[in-house]
Structure formats: C-alpha cells, structure tokens
C-alpha cells in the first residue's frame, strides 16, 4: 500500500524532464501491439493448425483429386507451364491469408469499439488513434504473416514452390490481404450494431472473389464480362504476384508493377479510412 498515489515527488514536472506521456508518444504503437500479442496467444494453436492443415487439404484436393483430372485433361502439360498443384497453391495461400486478415479486421474492430471496448480503454490512456490503429493492424499482419509463412513452407515441402524467389510469395499474400482487409476494417469501424454483416461480407464478397479471381483457373478462361471482377480483386493481383515469385513470371514485367501499385494504392486508402473510421468512433 505504499506506492499508491503516494510518492508524488518523482512525478513532479521539473524543467528539462520529459513531458508526461513522452514515451507513449514514441512507442504507443508498440504497446498496442504488445497487448494484441498477448491476446493472440490464445489463438496460437488455431493459427498454426489452419496454416499447416489447409495446404495439406489443398494438396489432397488439387494435387491428388482435381489435379489428376487437370493433368490428364491437359495431356500432362498442367496450367501456365507448371503442374496444376504448383499453379493453384500460391493463389490458395493468398486466399487463406486474405481470409485470416478479413476475419481479424472485422471481428477485431468490433471487439475493440463495441464488444470488449478495448480500443476505448486505450484511447483513455495517452495513446492516439493512429497508434491504436497501427498496433492493431500490425497484430493482424503478424497473424496473417505466420499463416502465409507456414503455408508457403508446406507448399515448398510439397515441391510446389520451385523458384528461389518463392519466399517473396509471402509478401504478395500479405499485400493482397492488407489491400482487402484494411478497407474492410474501415467499414467495420462504422458498424453501430452487429446484424450479421460479416456473414454477408463473407458470402457475397470473399467467396465470389475467391471464385472469380483466377485462383483455381487462369482469369483468361473466364468470359471477358466476368474478368473485371478479377481486375478489381486484390486476390487476383496478389495471386499473380505470388505465382510469379513461386515459379517464375508468365507475363510482361510492367504487368507485375501494375499489380504492386494497385495493391499499394488500396492499402494506403484503406489505412486512411481505418484511421478516420476509428477517430469517429473513439473521439466522439
């Protein structure tokens, strides 16, 4: 019972002493991330099981099942010059990473502003909204990153990732996931009442994106009027980048630059909207 606001002397502001909250001003984002990492520990097993289990199931389905059919149908040529499994795994990795980010962005935001109100608690401390948003996004990137790395590792062990640049497919997956997840988080920050919006987002945005983003077959196979879904889909841009890094580019170099620029643009806009959405929520 001795420390309670007793010893005031140490706190008295003297000339030259740092302003109150100076450390939080510099390191606030890290403190927020530290909190989220503690929370993440209880999802650790799920994250690992999902990241390792999903590519294994994909291997069974697309390597042994559908893959055998495709290999036979193409006379053993595969798709895009590689076996079907090698074609499909980089894109499926991007899809899973995107799903993990989307889930965390949506539920994490609602937990923070509405259900557990942990963001409101943070805002009552000397933390700022960009720090709260930044630490939160960093924690999502961490979980999504672990997912992508483990997935890539399993795919590599399965022999699907042949290029020495294959490790960079993890970055492609993260770029795609962030380009979709940040704007989704901004939307979640505006939800005043949970009426099952996430199920809708999942059914009508995430799943169609997965189906029409050139994930399981090249986008060019689709009729031209369906291809624009792919063009606006972060998943398509990310998958193309992931494939190029996993087994080598199949298109002109400028096209890959376009993929990167589109994803970065969506990330920048998404970040601005996330901060704005959380400001409205936490500073009212």
């Amino acid at each position: 019972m001795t420390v309670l606001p007793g010893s005031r002397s140490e706190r008295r502001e003297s000339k030259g002493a740092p302003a109150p909250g100076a450390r939080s001003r510099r390191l606030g984002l890290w403190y927020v991330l530290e909190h989220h990492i503690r929370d993440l520990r209880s999802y650790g097993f799920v994250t690992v099981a999902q990241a390792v289990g999903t590519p294994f199931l994909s291997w069974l389905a697309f390597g042994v099942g559908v893959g055998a059919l495709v290999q036979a149908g193409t006379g053993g040529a595969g798709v895009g010059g590689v076996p079907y499994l090698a074609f499909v795994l980089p894109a499926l990795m991007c899809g899973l990473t995107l799903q993990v980010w989307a889930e965390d962005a949506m539920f994490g935001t609602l937990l923070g502003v509405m259900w557990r109100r942990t963001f409101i608690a943070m805002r009552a401390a000397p933390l700022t909204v960009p720090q709260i948003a930044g630490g939160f996004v960093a924690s999502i990137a961490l979980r999504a990153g672990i997912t992508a790395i483990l997935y890539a590792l399993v795919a590599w062990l399965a022999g699907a990732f042949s290029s020495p640049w294959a490790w960079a497919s993890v970055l492609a997956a993260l770029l795609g996931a962030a380009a979709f997840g940040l704007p989704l988080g901004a939307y979640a920050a505006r939800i005043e009442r949970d009426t099952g919006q996430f199920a809708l987002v999942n059914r009508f945005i995430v799943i169609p994106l997965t189906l029409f983003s050139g994930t399981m077959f090249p986008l060019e196979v689709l009729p031209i009027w369906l291809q624009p879904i792919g063009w606006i889909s972060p998943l398509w841009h990310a998958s193309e980048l992931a494939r190029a890094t996993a087994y080598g580019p199949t298109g002109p170099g400028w096209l890959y630059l376009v993929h990167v620029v589109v994803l970065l643009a969506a990330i920048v806009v998404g970040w601005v909207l996330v901060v704005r959405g959380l400001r409205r929520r936490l500073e009212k």
Partner: protein
Amino acid sequence: MPNGVAPVIRAAGLRKVYGSTVAVDDVSFEVAPGEAFGLLGPNGAGKSTTMRMLGAVSARSGGSLEILGRDPDRQGPEIRAQLGVVPQLDNLDTELSARENLIVYGRYFGLPHAVVAARADELLGFAQLEDKAKAAIDDLSGGMKRRLTIARALINEPRILLLDEPTTGLDPQARHILWDRLFRLKEQGTTLVLTTHYMDEAEQLCDRLIVVDHGRIMAEGTPAGLIREHSTREVLEVRFGSERNAEAAVALADLGERVEPLPDRVLVYAENGEHVLAEVLRRGWDPVTSLVRRSSLEDVFLRLTGRSLIE
C-alpha cells in the same frame, strides 16, 4: 475551493452537441487538487459526456477547459498520461487475466515491465483481488470488475481519478467496499471526480458537488450546504394510499415550509417532523405509514427539478 491553490480542472461554459442533441449545455466549475468533486444528476443529464471531455477523449463543442494546466484539444496525450479513468461501462480485456489487464494498461503509459509488474501486484492487493490475479475477467463479480477497473486506473499513479458511476449496479456490500477504497485514495491526496445518481454516494464521498440536469448546473456546493440551502432540516413522509395523497397534500399544505405530493407519498418539509406529524394526526388525517427523516440530496434535487433522481 481553498484559496491560493491552482485548480487542477477549470471548466467554463463547457458545451457538447451531438447533431441536434445538446448533451452538455453550459457547465462551469473548478476542482482543487486533492478535492473529491461530484456530478450528481439523473439519466441523460450529460454526466458521462462531461467526463469524456474532462478525460481529453471527446472534443468540446464550446467553452473553455483546462486540465492540469493544459488544453485537452491540443495536449490530449500529455493530459491523459496523468489521469486515471473508470468508465461507466467496463472495458476490461476479457481475453486476459485480471493481472494481465493491469500490466497491458500500465504499458500504455510507457512504464517498464518491472514497474508495471510490481504495481500490478500492489494494486491487486489494494483492490482486494490478490487471489483473483490469474482469474478470467468473466469469472469476476460486478463489484470485483469495478475494483479491478479502479486498480487499472491507478497503475500510472494519476493526479486525477475520473470515476463515471463507480458503483451503479452493485449490491450494498460491494458498494461499501468500493467506497472504502475511494476513501483511502482521497486520504492519500488523489483528486477524485465522480458522477453518480445515488445521493448517498454523493454525500459519502464528495467534498463538493454540482447538481446537473439537461446539461446545465442546477446548484453547486457541499452536500450539507446544498441541503441547508435548498431544503429543511427534516422531512415527514406520509402515505395515505394513492387516491388520497393529492387531496391530503392540499389539506396539509400549510403545515411545512413546503409540501410535495408524489404519486406514492406526501413529503412535508419542516424543521421538526414530529411536530408536523402530531398536527397531521390532530387534523384527522390518519396515514397508512409515516416516517420522519433528515433531508438529503434527493430532496434538493426534487426541489430544484421537480423530479426524482432515480425514476
């Protein structure tokens, strides 16, 4: 307010508007260091909105505000670094244990791990939650969660502790434990600002308070001073049954300084309640029940607003 001491909170003409709702209309007050200051008012009076502005969370729509000598609009983080906040709605992280909640919160203030760990253990003791250190938040009672939230608010050794309805929803025993903890803080010199709609809480804890309604200050003073100023020493409460209360109030109107007919009872304000009761009986009005008590802040509020604090 003691003379010559710079106030830690200075609010003048404070105002907050949400769209067409005026949540806080015109509120002015000062709080001296070490003082326990209360905002007493009914639901929707604007207490929480005022507290969020004092906590440098919500920007004011008008007026001026200075917390610890700083403007919350420009130096929010510097102010918040020196505050402890107990919000109306608990916002503990249910994913973490009681102790972990204290630790992550302490880190927000930039305190080293060793310091937050030591303070967390000390504060768990202060909140009488030593044996709950590892407990999940969902396994704590309402009173324990409130105590943990207060402990969390103290982790940065704040200069001002803001408490928004610290005991609402708790049973009497839990409230008394909490009051005891707040008394200790007060003894140690922490400035307390608290909102409540319990008059007994305001009387117990506050050196000085404002009565707020519809975002405006209805009265300001010490609990005893307010009662002296706005009410009589004693109150006679008599019940005649819901049909006869209004009629009785008219017939007894001359007996006290003031007579207040409520749906379920009649209040007669007088210096000596027993004398009034004798006169009521002499006039042939035979109440179902009668009670003489001292005036409280509830009576002050009724006098000022014509309404009860708790509907």
